């Protein structure tokens, strides 16, 4: 949001206070201030929301806060729109002329950095209010869009009028509130953008605002117009909003009156402008009259509605469908108002802006005469009506009482008032109850501090790292990879004292202390590690120093907006995650000053950056970031620290010597030069790291060893206390002897000679060894699919082993001539499969099922007849686990809930990675850019998806706690070698063997019946009932339910 405002101001060349435009135009100056003030108010509100979320509030409280937030976002946007209007009139019309349209177009992308649903909402409104600009720039085409806009305003407007939760949220507003429940999480990223210091904003800004007041006296017609229109839209918006929620008639009436009053104000302004225009613009007159007519319609519609309820003398609850024409009237009113305002602006543009004198209030008073006289009484009763009409109303009162300090909230609402000298008494009275705080606003402007909300200043995020050194957080395994940044930061910082939250894998995380000690300070024993860290910290000022220095600096919305940023080049998805961005913007996100970077984001970046940039460019941009942030007073230090940490994390735990070492010539001078100048200890440390890394590079595989050490440590740490007892291998001495004999050329062993559990265990150990060795780079960029020189040695070894196992299964079954014995072998493999499932070894399970389910095995019907029903049912259960239907819904569900150690079916990840790669573009367009040709930025979403899948796989890379039986493993490997080298690995060979064992039965007809899809797999005469169901099932299941009677039928 901040970035959006900044970009917006930048595009309008009003970023700097002393910019010519700002100096030259009072209106712009004031609106700019107002915008900044709104922004800071929004920021504060986000802060408070964060606090509330942290204290686990009631949903109601949360709702209130969220509503506030939405309201503020809306205000910021409204203000920006008004700013743009004024800017266009005052500036663009004067000196930019034709460029105006272009500027305006450029100003549009002010919304891209959608942070959360809140801003999305705001965004939405802003988008909707664009027709206004178009309207006045082009003078037409707005009528189609305006109704939509009216809608959107209604949601915002309702917020303005009530800013309380609605029990019956309707339509647009409903959407906003529906999103809200999900917001605690959504809003967090937004909050993280927001600097945690906001102590004296309101004071400062309100002060400066006050200084602007003298200028207000020469209020310009254009401003008047904007203010009047805003007020009108606000009321009419709440009018529609109210209607949609079936509120009480009294409330509706009040709102109607307010709308009418506001509309009248608008008309007054329009009239005045019209008077001023020497040519008495006809179109304007038309538009004005049109608007007045619409207003009349509206009033009439309301009146019609109320006559009956009045007669009853009770509060009449409006049903939503009752007032459809009311909404229609209001909508058309808004439309004509928009038209009118647009035309007025054109006129103003032509005749030049002029000072507005206090206009008689006759007009605005006269409107009330058209309403039932009863209306007047409602003015005074109004607060009561609101509290006793409905549960909604009571909630409003509750919420307003429970809210700690509403005044600052409404600061900006009240702002238009001082500059509206014609704000007539009726209008002020008619403000909805909550805005009654208006009265106190002048006070709040003067005595900002006392009225400030009780904002407890959040400690900067660094402290969250330091305070999290509790040992339990260190030992607590963090399985949830997508966990909040905080929890990850917790476990990481416990091992390395400074802020290095750049790891998310539980294993890696807790292994990090080992890593960092080893890779960086081999000369120090791990016990002195902490000390060295402390030294390091103290040398660039302790964290608390940084913290306090930050606190001393006053929060300054203005200076914040002035800071250079690429944040407008980021795209967020609905979940608030970064979905795309230019490289500088992503790097900025990586080194945010005000929050712990999102763990998933950071991990993704480290994991995948080589796919979208080079190590050299990455280093260069980090260094650039280090430099351009140094201009910023309040965030230079934290950001520079983060830049250092990014380098550190990269070199320590994500370094890939073969590709990354080319960046060393860039990193080293930076470490010894600028970094050392700014943060001496950090510079030294980074220089040390570069040295270590280049040594490691010479020794090639060292980083891998370190990371696997980390993994081993973790797994032991995790599992020793749970089950210290390693299971005893189920193997007898004679079995071991037989294995040794077989190895030395004695009698060969059979798969039937051993316990299925032990066979499953030993194969699991063999496979797990390969699985745990899989490196993330093997899984990136479809590396494993490279046929030649693939670096993905372990992934390919996994696939090979699975294929080997499948072939071994087929071989053991098909090499037996006796059908009865074949059935026993099948039974043994089913048992092994069951044990694999018990061991969470899905990869081997898949291989076994593939083989048992293959046509060459499945077609052996004589054999299957000899397999017991129990075994068949078991096999069916196993098959269901790895069933590929619905994209492996069953298997995915199981894997999601599985806890390591586990051997997932790797193929599922490989397919996922392939489709993420081919199904997502490498770039995406920044929205809202000129002519629809948004700048292409990195599609980070794709990389996030990739990283997420790799993370799922890595989650299981923990060795099994099983005792290896080398003899058995040797034998298994020899069997695999035998099968691999034999001729029969070819599927066709197996099939021939299968045909030899059980020759094909002669068919009754030469031409195959079309119904027999599954013919080859099993002789089948087409039991029609199974055909209606999922065909994938019946091949297999029928194989087991095949009855002898059917066989006879087939034979005949």
């Amino acid at each position, binding site marked *: 949001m901040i970035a959006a405002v900044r970009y917006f101001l930048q595009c309008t060349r009003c970023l700097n206070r002393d910019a010519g435009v700002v100096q030259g135009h009072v209106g712009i100056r004031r609106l700019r201030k107002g915008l900044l003030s709104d922004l800071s108010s929004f920021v504060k509100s986000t802060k408070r929301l964060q606090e509330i979320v942290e204290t686990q509030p009631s949903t109601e409280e949360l709702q209130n806060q969220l509503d506030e937030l939405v309201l503020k976002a809306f205000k910021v946007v409204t203000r920006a729109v008004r700013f743009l209007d004024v800017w266009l009139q005052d500036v663009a019309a004067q000196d930019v002329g034709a460029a105006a349209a272009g500027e305006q177009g450029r100003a549009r992308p002010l919304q891209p950095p959608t942070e959360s649903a809140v801003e999305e909402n705001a965004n939405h409104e802003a988008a909707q209010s664009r027709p206004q600009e178009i309207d006045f720039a082009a003078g037409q085409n707005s009528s189609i869009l305006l109704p939509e806009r009216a809608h959107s305003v209604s949601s915002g407007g309702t917020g303005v009028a009530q800013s309380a939760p609605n029990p019956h949220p309707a339509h647009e507003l409903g959407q906003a509130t529906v999103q809200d429940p999900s917001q605690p999480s959504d809003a967090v990223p937004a909050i993280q953008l927001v600097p945690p210091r906001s102590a004296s904003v309101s004071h400062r800004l309100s002060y400066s605002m006050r200084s602007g007041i003298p200028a207000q006296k020469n209020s310009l017609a254009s401003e008047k117009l904007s203010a009047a229109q805003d007020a009108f839209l606000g009321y009419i918006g709440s009018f529609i909003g109210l209607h949609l929620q079936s509120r009480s008639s009294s409330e509706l009436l009040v709102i109607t009156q307010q709308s009418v009053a506001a509309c009248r104000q608008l008309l007054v302004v329009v009239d005045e402008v019209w008077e001023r225009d020497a040519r008495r613009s006809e179109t304007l007159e038309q538009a004005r009259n049109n608007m007045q007519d619409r207003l009349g319609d509206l009033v009439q519609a309301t009146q019609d509605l109320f006559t009956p309820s009045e007669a009853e003398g009770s509060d009449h609850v409006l049903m939503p469908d009752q007032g459809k024409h009311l909404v229609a009237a209001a909508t058309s009113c808004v439309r004509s108002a928009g038209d009118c305002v647009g035309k007025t602006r054109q006129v103003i543009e032509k005749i030049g802006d002029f000072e507005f004198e206090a206009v008689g209030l006759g007009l605005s008073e006269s409107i009330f005469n058209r309403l039932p006289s009863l209306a007047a009484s409602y003015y005074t009763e109004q607060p009561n009506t609101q509290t006793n009409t409905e549960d909604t109303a009571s909630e409003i009162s509750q919420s307003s009482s429970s809210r700690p300090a509403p005044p600052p909230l409404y600061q900006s609402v009240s702002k238009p008032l001082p500059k509206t000298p014609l704000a007539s008494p009726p209008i002020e009275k008619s403000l909805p109850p909550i805005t009654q705080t208006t009265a106190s606003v002048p006070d709040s402007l003067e005595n900002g501090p006392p009225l400030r909300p009780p904002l407890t200043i959040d400690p900067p995020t660094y402290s969250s790292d330091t305070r999290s050194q509790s040992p339990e957080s260190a030992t607590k395994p963090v399985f949830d990879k997508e966990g909040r940044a905080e929890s990850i930061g917790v476990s990481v910082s416990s091992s390395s004292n400074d802020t290095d939250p750049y790891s998310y894998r539980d294993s890696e995380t807790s292994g990090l202390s080992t890593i960092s000690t080893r890779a960086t300070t081999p000369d120090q024993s791990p016990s002195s590690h902490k000390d060295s860290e402390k030294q390091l910290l103290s040398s660039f000022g302790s964290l608390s120093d940084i913290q306090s220095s930050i606190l001393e600096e006053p929060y300054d919305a203005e200076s914040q907006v002035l800071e250079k940023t690429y944040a407008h080049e980021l795209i967020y998805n609905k979940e608030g995650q970064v979905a795309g961005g230019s490289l500088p913007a992503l790097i900025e996100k990586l080194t945010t000053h005000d929050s712990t970077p999102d763990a998933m984001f950071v991990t993704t970046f480290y994991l995948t950056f080589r796919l979208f940039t080079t190590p050299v460019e990455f280093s260069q941009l980090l260094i650039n970031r280090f430099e351009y942030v140094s201009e910023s007073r309040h965030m230079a230090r934290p950001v520079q620290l983060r830049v250092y940490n990014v380098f550190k994390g990269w070199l320590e735990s994500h370094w890939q010597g073969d590709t990354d070492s080319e960046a060393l010539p860039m990193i080293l001078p930076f470490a010894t030069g600028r970094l050392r100048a700014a943060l001496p200890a950090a510079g030294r440390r980074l220089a040390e790291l570069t040295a270590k890394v280049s040594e490691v590079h010479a020794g090639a595989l060292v980083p891998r060893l370190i990371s696997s050490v980390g993994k081993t440590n973790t797994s032991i740490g995790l599992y020793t206390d749970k089950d210290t007892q390693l299971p005893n291998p189920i193997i007898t001495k004679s079995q071991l002897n037989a294995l040794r004999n077989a190895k030395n050329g004695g009698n060969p062993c059979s798969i039937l000679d051993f316990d299925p559990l032990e066979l499953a265990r030993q194969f699991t150990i063999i496979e797990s060894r390969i699985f745990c060795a899989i490196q993330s780079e093997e899984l990136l960029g479809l590396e494993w*699919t490279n046929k030649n020189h693939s670096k993905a040695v372990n992934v390919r070894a996994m696939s090979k082993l699975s294929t080997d196992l499948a072939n071994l299964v087929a071989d053991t079954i098909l090499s037996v001539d006796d059908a009865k014995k074949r059935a026993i072998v099948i039974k043994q493999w089913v048992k092994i499969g069951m044990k694999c499932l018990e061991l969470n070894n899905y990869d081997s399970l898949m291989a076994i099922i*593939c083989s048992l389910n293959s046509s060459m095995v499945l077609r052996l019907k004589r054999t299957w007849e000899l397999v017991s029903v129990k075994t068949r049912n078991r096999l069916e259960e196993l098959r269901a686990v790895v069933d590929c239907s619905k994209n492996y819904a069953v298997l995915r569900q199981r894997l999601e809930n599985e806890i390591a150690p586990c051997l997932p079916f790797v193929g599922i990840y490989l*397919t996922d990675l392939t489709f993420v790669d081919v199904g997502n573009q490498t770039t995406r367009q920044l929205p809202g850019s000129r002519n629809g040709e948004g700048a292409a930025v990195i599609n980070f979403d794709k990389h996030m998806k990739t990283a997420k899948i790799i993370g799922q796989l890595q989650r299981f890379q923990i060795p099994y706690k099983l005792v290896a039986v080398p003899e058995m493993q040797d034998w298994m490997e020899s069997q695999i070698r035998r099968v691999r080298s034999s001729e029969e690995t070819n599927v066709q060979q197996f*099939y021939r063997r299968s045909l030899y064992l059980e020759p094909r039965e002669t068919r009754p007809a030469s031409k195959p019946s079309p119904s027999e899809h599954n013919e080859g797999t099993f002789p089948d005469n087409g039991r029609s009932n199974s055909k209606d169901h999922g065909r994938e099932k019946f091949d297999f299941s029928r194989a087991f339910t095949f009855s002898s009677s059917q066989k006879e039928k087939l034979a005949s």
Partner: protein
Amino acid sequence: MSGGGRSRRATARDYNVVVLGSGGVGKSCLTAQFVQNVWIESYDPTIEDSYRKHIRINNRHAVLEILDTAGTDQFTAFRELYIRQGHGFLLVFSITSMSSLRELYDIYEEIITQKRDNRFPMVLVGNKADLEDDRVVDKSIGFRLSREWGIPYYETSARRRTNVHEVFAEVTARMMDRDRPVVRETRPRPKCVIL
């Protein structure tokens, strides 16, 4: 796809279409292009209906489940499993690679052996038709093979989305044609189809 399809979707038949071909022929791209909605900005292949797509051919409705072994080409046993589940096949090669066409022979044999039917619904697909300059498999070779196998031949460009829908439509039509007698046969036992 079609607005009126919703009500009939309940009766739409499920078909498994298996996309086969050696690695690097762009078969996963073909699948992704077919399954993906043009408007989807972000494709997630990990959800249940990532590979499901409703299709209508001559007013007949079907739901296709695309089985694609993409990424698991080295796990050859796995391919068997998919072939067994398949009701129709796309045999994909790249017009820029003769070996990718040769590899289809094995796959074709495997299907024929498994299904014991040489008229099983299949379509021969020469992908990467946009890379005309790199073409090594002449169109005539493709057509000759398609005549030999008795299956239609299409050239596609997954990258340019040409003929992507067509090949899936073709194989669906063939699966439906093959199915029609079945539908007639099962009519005496309507079971729960109507319910």
